[in-house]
């Protein structure tokens, strides 16, 4: 099973390796825009919790960017492979288990999320952010990448057209990128909306990352919530892989 996970991962790694230069360059664009607009532009005049707004939003940007990259690295290629290219059949015909496929795919999506987060962290330092990065930070980041890579897998298995996939992005990921404690603390939102926001995984990611960066207590609860999301999405993913044959 480990070998099969590696095989699934290996294929994606091969493709990534071929495009690594382009991958890194394109991943730098949106974080630079965020850092310029919110860090330099808007942020100059804002103070949050006695710190600079730049320091405040860097964890938020990392959370939302790792979400987008992890989700889209799995979601859109897998959806295309299932619906248009039919390359998913190559895996379905092979003597490997659905679990191996799911884990391999999610891991490779998470790797892309992590790489792009690393780029942001380096950029953020270049922009003059002060951040405390430790092992808990890395754990929270990995969990966030896994949450959204596995969500991407589920979406790719459920959505039947490329357009639906784009809609999923618009209706689920886009609102999360703005609402889930990425650019502001959601304490002042109307109660119902706040509950909803606190239920969403990205809120926990931004909360955990920000807590760790500012040197607060380890946000164990948020990490557990993220782990629960990963388990749920992977479970649904395996179930969908089995169901695809009915």
């Amino acid at each position, binding site marked *: 099973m480990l070998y099969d996970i590696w095989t699934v991962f*290996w294929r994606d790694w091969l493709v990534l390796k071929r495009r690594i230069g382009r991958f890194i360059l394109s991943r730098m664009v949106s974080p630079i825009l965020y850092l310029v607009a919110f860090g330099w532009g808007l942020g100059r005049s804002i103070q949050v919790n006695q710190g600079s707004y730049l320091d405040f939003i860097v964890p938020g940007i990392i959370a939302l960017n790792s979400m987008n990259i992890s989700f889209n690295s799995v979601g859109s290629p897998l959806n295309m492979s299932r619906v248009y290219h*039919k390359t998913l059949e190559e895996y379905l015909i092979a003597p*490997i288990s659905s679990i191996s496929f799911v884990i391999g795919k999610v891991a490779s999506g998470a790797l892309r999320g992590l790489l792009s987060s690393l780029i942001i962290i380096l950029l953020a330092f270049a922009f003059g952010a002060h951040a405390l990065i430790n092992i808990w930070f890395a754990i929270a980041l990995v969990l966030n990448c896994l949450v959204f890579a596995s969500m991407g897998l589920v979406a790719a298995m459920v959505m039947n057209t490329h357009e639906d996939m784009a809609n999923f992005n618009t209706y689920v990921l886009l609102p999360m990128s703005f609402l889930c404690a990425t650019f502001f603390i959601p304490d002042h939102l109307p109660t119902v909306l706040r509950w909803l926001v606190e239920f969403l995984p990205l809120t926990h990611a931004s909360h955990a990352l920000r807590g760790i960066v500012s040197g607060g207590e380890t946000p164990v609860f948020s990490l557990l919530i993220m782990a629960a999301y990963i388990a749920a999405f992977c479970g649904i993913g395996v179930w969908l892989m089995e169901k695809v044959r009915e």
Partner: protein
Amino acid sequence: MIHIENFSKKFGERTAVDNLSLKIAKGEIFGLLGPNGAGKTTTIRVLTMLTRPTAGRIVIDGREASHQEQHIKSVIGVVPQHFNLDSDLTPWENLELHGRLHHMMPQVRNQRIEELLKFVELEDRAHEMVQKFSGGMKRRLMIARALLHQPKVLFLDEPTVGLDPQVRRRLWDLIRHLKNEGLTVLLTTHYIEEAENLCQRVAIMEKGKLIAIDTPMALCQRLGSYAVEWADEEGTKTKFFADRNEASAFAATLVTTTTLRQTNLEDAFVELTGRKVAG
């Protein structure tokens, strides 16, 4: 080698395959014929473990599909109707991925990849991107991929659709060559001459049901060995005769242009299914 008993597949209310039973022996090239929508592809998808049957029993290489799916997957090779190569990879990488998915040892795998690329005459293009390949090259690469792990049964779903006649003939030679090496081949086609050329036995399906199963020769002889074909206001008409003299005597009574020829599988197909198919 392949044993299907009372197999049915329903998609909701629609029955794609209705109570199909057949046996295919080791080393046989078996053709599945039928008009579009007859249930050929569904049958192949179920036999290749891509779809599960609604009812019935399927045994391949002595193993029950319902219990030993993984074993069956390891002894079958599949060439689907559509091109499903990974276009982000080179031919070599496509084959390597397949070899890894089938748990081949690196040394054996590399050797097989080299052999098969030579076999399908793609060794010079091994490290180009698949995206740039023509239809014939892709089809050949898909055959190489299906054979990489030395399967015992090969499934070909419309293997020569959209290919040039030359490429098509080469593929036929290739399939015959594989049969001589003891491989069992199940292919679907709606090119009648392809079935006639390649298959020891053919089954004709229509609307999900098996309506005939025999050698191409026997199916033709059911109608009579000779056919007289002529056209009138209503269209082309054909009449079959067991004897050549009888056929030519009949042809002489007609005033229009007539053709006297041997009965072929297409005649059998049309008589049985009542429709003309492309090809």
